């Protein structure tokens, strides 16, 4: 049971914190005081390409293989929250009745944690409605792009040996154990984990982040993907490492099959759709 990512990681738990702010996006709107303002910074990532290990489980010739690396391209500027959504930001959504209270009892300028994929989505929907703009979770590719040098993919067990499936299990187990990451459960104030080369803060700290990418089983042939079956009841979670969690999980930590590095906490940050900004301005001018 340690090898099924859903069981392994889905039951382990993580809590998520989300902190972000959008004050720049709401200038002049009468509802200003009701939108999050604590951490309004967005980072605009310039377009580019990068090599990216794909998310999911991959099979070739009936046995598991490491995730293939593909060239991914971000072709338009990507605006992503510099910080994770904060507890106080999230509380506003709760006060509006659009979000369920998070499991974490922390308040203020710390990432909101103890939130599920469903909570993160509810928050994005609420914020979009509130601001008249489009806010959403990043895809796995977008998140990895923003994470830059701090991105770490799944913990791999290498090529499966068709004659001995246990080798890969043991390798993966030992790779994960060898990282030696100690549990670090207490969320810290925004910025405590520093900023990466792209100006994005707190990547790979102690809050793993929800993405909009679904878990998938991919069967490959030597010249590419033969078939792929997604399970959108489980989403990609990113942080110190990439893992997969059921949509309703709020705490990634507990769990008997956890090996070395279950997510300490589950939180999120959002991507801002650029088009939405323009549309909102037009809307304010009565042009739409």
């Amino acid at each position: 049971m340690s090898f099924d990512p859903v069981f392994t990681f889905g039951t382990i738990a993580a809590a998520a914190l989300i902190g972000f702010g959008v004050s720049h996006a709401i200038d002049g709107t009468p509802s200003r005081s009701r939108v999050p303002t604590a951490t309004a910074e967005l980072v605009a990532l310039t377009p580019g390409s990068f090599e990216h290990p794909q998310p999911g489980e991959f099979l070739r010739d009936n046995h598991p293989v490491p995730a293939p690396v593909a060239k991914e391209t971000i072709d338009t500027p990507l605006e992503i929250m510099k910080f994770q959504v904060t507890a106080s930001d999230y509380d506003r959504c709760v006060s509006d009745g659009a979000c369920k209270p998070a499991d974490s009892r922390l308040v203020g300028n710390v990432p909101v944690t103890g939130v599920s994929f469903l909570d993160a989505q509810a928050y994005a929907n609420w914020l979009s409605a509130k601001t008249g703009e489009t806010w959403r979770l990043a895809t796995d590719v977008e998140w990895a792009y923003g994470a830059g040098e701090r991105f770490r993919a799944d913990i791999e067990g290498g090529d499966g040996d068709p004659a001995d499936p246990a080798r890969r299990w043991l390798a993966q187990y030992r790779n994960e154990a060898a990282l030696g990451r100690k549990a670090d459960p207490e969320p810290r104030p925004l910025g405590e984990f520093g900023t990466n080369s792209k100006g994005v803060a707190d990547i790979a700290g102690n809050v793993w982040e929800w993405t909009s990418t679904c878990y998938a089983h991919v069967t490959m042939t030597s010249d590419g993907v033969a078939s792929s079956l997604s399970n959108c009841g489980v989403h990609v979670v990113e942080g110190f490492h990439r893992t997969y969690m059921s949509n309703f999980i709020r705490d990634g930590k507990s769990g008997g099959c956890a090996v070395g590095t279950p997510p300490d906490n589950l939180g999120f940050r959002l991507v801002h759709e650029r088009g939405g900004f323009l549309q909102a301005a037009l809307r304010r001018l009565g042009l739409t």
Partner: protein
Amino acid sequence: MLTRREALLGSVLTAAAVATIGSTPVMAAAKDVAGLPREKVTLVAPPFVHAHDQVAKGGPKVVEFTMTIEEKPLVIDADGTQLNAMTYNGSIPGPLMVVHEGDYLELTLINPDTNTLAHNIDFHAATGGLGGGALTLINPGEQVTLRFKATRSGTFVYHCAPGGAMIPWHVVSGMSGAVMVLPRDGLKDEKGKPVRYDRIYYIGENDFYIPRDEQGKFKKYDSAGDNYDDTVKVMRGLIPTHVVFNGKAGSLTGENAMKAKVGETVLIVHSQANRDTRPHLIGGHGDFVWEGGKFANPPAKDMETWFIRGGSAGSALYTFRQPGVYAYVNHNLIEAVELGATAHFTVDGKWDDDLMMQVEAPKAIAS
């Protein structure tokens, strides 16, 4: 104050116990024992077990052990939850002591003056004197030496039992361990044929009862005495906040996972001093299981899950036949997964397709 009250309770108990022992022929026995060979054993922290012979060499002897009691805060889960632990020799559980039937186990128990409470030890393997509890109560700054004869073979719990309400509190604060008394000619299967083990691991399971604050968060206390009133309230609910192996959720996983090889025979000794449990090796079995722990009874064979009564220690012998990662759990899976009672084995060796193989990997359902 707590210390005094405890000491008082303890001394009353001791007096009563001594009175009931009456006219034991202590002198003659002591004289006989004085002539026996002595062996001094240095204990090691679980899940490991000190070196020992599976079949006794020579006749009965006196096996000497020393344990120092340590009161100290210990973290018991990944959230950093703290237990004001009371420990035998610094570990939860205390070390496994191995002797042979007919040997004398002689323990020197030390309660340093850095501790704040009175402690003692009750050996389920011992006869009389409240398992030794009546003769071992020591205050901080004292030490005591107890000897008892290992009259029957098996795995047996030991625990602190300093009187009244102190007993369960000390036990759920970590004060338990186990003794293994091997038959002089070693372990035997149900037909009396000798069986041996290549490795031995000792797992102590504990139920902890950590009080929570108004927000539901686990509380932290400066000292053991400070938590007493709150902890007893949680204990009386009989629902543990943690059920863990070797003192902490995740103590036997990752880098600390137990190790074995295909073809090796492992003896897993499992104790629970307070509460029933049901060990299960996921993907393996108990080839021979001494569920009640006593080796004079034939072992049960081919068990899937075995029952360890609260207040006892049992053992399971298993020869690994397939490599991989095995989870060893309390098969109340809520306790295993949510409360912490999970350990892992990593087993190296050659995979056997005859025992198992994936005939076809996951793929879309054929239409």
